[in-house]
């Protein structure tokens, strides 16, 4: 299959969550993204982005300095960066934004980085894979690559907070009425369904600070709306949202007696299925909310995936 825009070398910024807790999604990314023209380059020395919530809000100086260090490694290779995580995209783009705006901050950061042998230059671009697909590859180019249209599959998209807001940082979509993820889903032949709490947070922040009841409550509101919209699955582009919807759904269902199971799928898995990869190759057996026996599983079977 020829790549739409020719091969493009990109520093592959995997973050922490995917390589450590969800390696099957890294496997899927390494299989699918090259089909869209991304030549993924592993760069030595990347660390945690770091996380915008646990680190960014508690120690902004360290956050931006470690972020700048990560970007400087890609710059040393002359590469732009591609991330698989909303948190990583937020942190690294925020770093580029802040250091571009304030020469003084950039000077302070580079003063510290010099002691580690690196310099932040501000030349590498950082993109999450969803904006990369929508803007750099293009919806029409994706459409042309589809081998197995996902006709009849009803998908509820959750773009996720850190890719929508603040809008000036991402330039990806309208943070109050997002549509681009829906267009990416529609380009595969599937149907994007709208639901009431489409822009609400998944609630992972509660889960990681030990607030289980609040986490389940936030999650159950979204899950109930997704179910009411008649979606076969929830599509995400962020591994933290994925973990919250997938693993969290089990505890939220127990606590609030939710009598449904909605499979959670990373967009790259849907894309892979539409490109002709099998359910096995797309690692659908790794999900906590089982695909078998759901309307999602039935439709995939009918599509021969």
């Amino acid at each position: 299959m020829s790549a739409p825009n020719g091969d493009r070398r990109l520093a592959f910024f995997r973050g922490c969550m995917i390589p450590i807790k969800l390696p099957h999604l890294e496997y899927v990314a390494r299989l699918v993204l090259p089909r869209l023209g991304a030549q993924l380059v592993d760069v030595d020395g990347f660390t945690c982005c770091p996380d915008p919530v646990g680190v960014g809000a508690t120690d902004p100086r360290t956050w931006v300095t470690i972020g700048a260090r990560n970007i400087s490694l890609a710059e040393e290779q002359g590469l732009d960066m591609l991330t698989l995580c909303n948190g990583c995209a937020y942190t690294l783009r925020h770093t580029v934004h802040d250091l571009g705006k304030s020469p003084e901050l950039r000077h302070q950061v580079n003063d510290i980085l010099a002691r580690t042998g690196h310099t932040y230059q501000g030349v590498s671009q950082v993109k999450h894979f969803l904006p990369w697909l929508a803007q750099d590859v293009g919806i029409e180019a994706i459409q042309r690559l589809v081998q197995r249209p996902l006709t009849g599959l009803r998908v509820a998209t959750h773009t996720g907070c850190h890719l929508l807001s603040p809008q000036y940082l991402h330039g990806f979509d309208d943070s109050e009425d997002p549509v681009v993820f829906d267009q990416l889903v529609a380009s595969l032949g599937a149907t994007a369904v709208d639901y009431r709490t489409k822009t609400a947070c998944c609630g992972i922040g509660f889960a990681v600070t030990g607030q289980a009841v609040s986490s389940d409550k936030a999650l159950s509101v979204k899950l109930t709306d997704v179910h009411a919209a008649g979606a076969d699955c929830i599509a995400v582009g962020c591994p933290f949202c994925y973990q919250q919807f997938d693993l969290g759904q089990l505890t939220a269902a127990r606590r609030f007696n939710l009598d449904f199971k909605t499979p959670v799928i990373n967009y790259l898995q849907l894309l892979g299925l539409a490109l002709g990869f099998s359910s096995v190759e797309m690692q659908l057996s790794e999900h906590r909310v089982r695909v078998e026996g759901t309307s999602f599983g039935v439709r995939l079977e009918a599509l021969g995936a």
Partner: protein
Amino acid sequence: MLLRESFQAHDSQLEPRAEVEYCLQCAVCGLVCVVNQAEAYDPRHTFVYDLFNQGIEAKETLWGCPTCHKCEERCPYNFRPLELVKAHKEAALAAGLAPEAVYGELESLLSTGSAFPGSNVTERRRSKLGLPDLPVRPVNELAIIAEHTGLAGKLAAARLAQRLKKEEGESNA
């Protein structure tokens, strides 16, 4: 005026944020925030009111903030509640009052280069999928950064404050 009184009690945090005076407690920030799902949330709260009247103790409403910027985008007075949330989290961290998970994450970042450590299970799953080994993350460089940004000192001070508080509790018991 209720707000003015409580603000005066926190001059050091308010001084660089004079625009907080524009907050009229409309509570839109709370309505668009996931924190309104927290057990401890009260619909009468705005972030500004809530935070400045209750201090920086480890509270659900403070630590439930996912830095999503919705409050900032919707505030009709162009005030930035998120900046206050971050200022409070920063102060809580240094005082030893942040949730244990936050200290755990920062310590993991500095000791492993990752927000959480991998395990044998991680390695087994990766090798089954034919994925490359996890990269070696240069923690020596992170130590240098943490020393010069002040994070290393802040973490040590926070742990000391926690230990003293615990010892005080034990001697009072």
